[in-house]
């Protein structure tokens, strides 16, 4: 099978990998690069579990053909903080019980990071609108919204 080379910046580091044309960014991250925070949910852009930041914007990685990230910048939840120095969103999701089973959490955090990068102090309604494409099947939405608002406070 023809494989095409892809070189891009992943969490601040340049990576090179070869993959067939049909592979999407979600599969590239999980199966080729072992970035398992990015979750495989619906593969249709409906659930948001695979949300990553591509060139500064939240995208569903399952809808991005891996070849098209050549030369671009991808950030996953591993790239925004470390256990020693977590991102305010990572602190807030822990302190405000924003994660229950945790499956939606990486996608939720990346969608909210893209929101806060553009709008550092959103209203509750803007937060809800920002995560409208991310499904939490534990239905812990209130705690998630509280976590995002708390992170925004922390970043003041």
């Amino acid at each position, binding site marked *: 099978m023809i494989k095409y080379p892809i070189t891009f910046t992943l969490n601040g580091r340049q990576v090179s990998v070869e993959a067939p*044309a049909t592979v*999407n960014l979600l599969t590239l991250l999980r199966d080729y690069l072992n970035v398992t925070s990015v979750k495989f949910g619906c593969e249709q852009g409906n659930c948001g579990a695979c949300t990553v930041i591509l060139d500064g914007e939240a995208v569903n990685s399952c809808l*991005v053909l891996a070849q098209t990230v050549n030369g671009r910048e991808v950030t996953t939840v591993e790239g925004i903080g470390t256990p020693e120095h977590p991102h305010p969103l990572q602190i807030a999701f822990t302190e405000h019980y924003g994660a229950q089973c945790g499956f939606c959490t990486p996608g939720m955090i990346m969608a909210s990071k893209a929101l806060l990068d553009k709008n550092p102090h959103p209203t509750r309604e803007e937060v809800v609108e920002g995560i409208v494409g991310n499904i939490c099947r534990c239905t812990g939405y209130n705690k998630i919204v509280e976590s995002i608002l708390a992170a925004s406070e922390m970043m003041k």
Partner: protein
Amino acid sequence: MKDVKYFAPTSLTEALELLETYGPEVSILAGGTDLVRDMNLEFKIPKGIMWIGRLGLEYIRDEGNLIRIGAATRMQTAGASPLLQQKASALARAAGKLASPPVRSLATLGGNLCTASPAADCGCALLGLGAEVVLTSAKGQRIVPLDAFYLGPNKTVIRPDELLTEILIRPTGAGEGSSYMKIGRRQAMTLAVINATSRVRLDEQGKVEAVNIAVGAAAPTLLRIKPAESLLIGQPLNEETIRAAAEIATKEIQPINDVHGTIWYRRKVVGVLVTRTLREAAGLNGGGNNHHD
């Protein structure tokens, strides 16, 4: 699995040459929200893929009496454009509310048109605005009005060697407005059960000088309700004439029963949306209640 070719041209000339050679077997990839989803679900595995994200086709240009929009302009760009919000507000609203933010940072206007879903949000807004599309091939260009663009569900007049490169809209001017509304099963992330767009220009006496009415999810393609438009021309726009236009829409559509809605419901609700979009486009009492705003 069979080999799939991938092309990422960096100029329009290169892209058109590729289509000239490989046209029939190449699927054009813009935002990927339809094509990559169909590939993921194995509904469709193309023989070749040509990505058009490097052709400089994301722009919105104000040329006074014409707005030119690059076909690869994404939903979030269109939704946030002050020019579109002011002079093609139906499109700004359709694009700004489509699906979710992560989908809006991928999905493109050209893609929304070429997928040719009978329920397309931006397709409905653009049809109601009276937009035209520029189809470009290595041999030349043709301009097609959107009401001659759709042939059926997922079918358009685009030839395999052609690329939809630009969307043309006449901006709304004095005495003129547009409105897009949608009823879905929820507010976000949803296919329209019915959507509608109206564009209205009133003369100084408040009579209808020009009007377009388009509805979606109501027939095999997006549909202009031309008998309702003819009825309104030269008439004052009031509750009586609006009701008459809405009743025509109820009869003109050919809806189906599916998981999204029933024929009965679609006929009920299409009249409501035609009424509200006509009112809003004409600046009458804010268009009435709409759950989406």
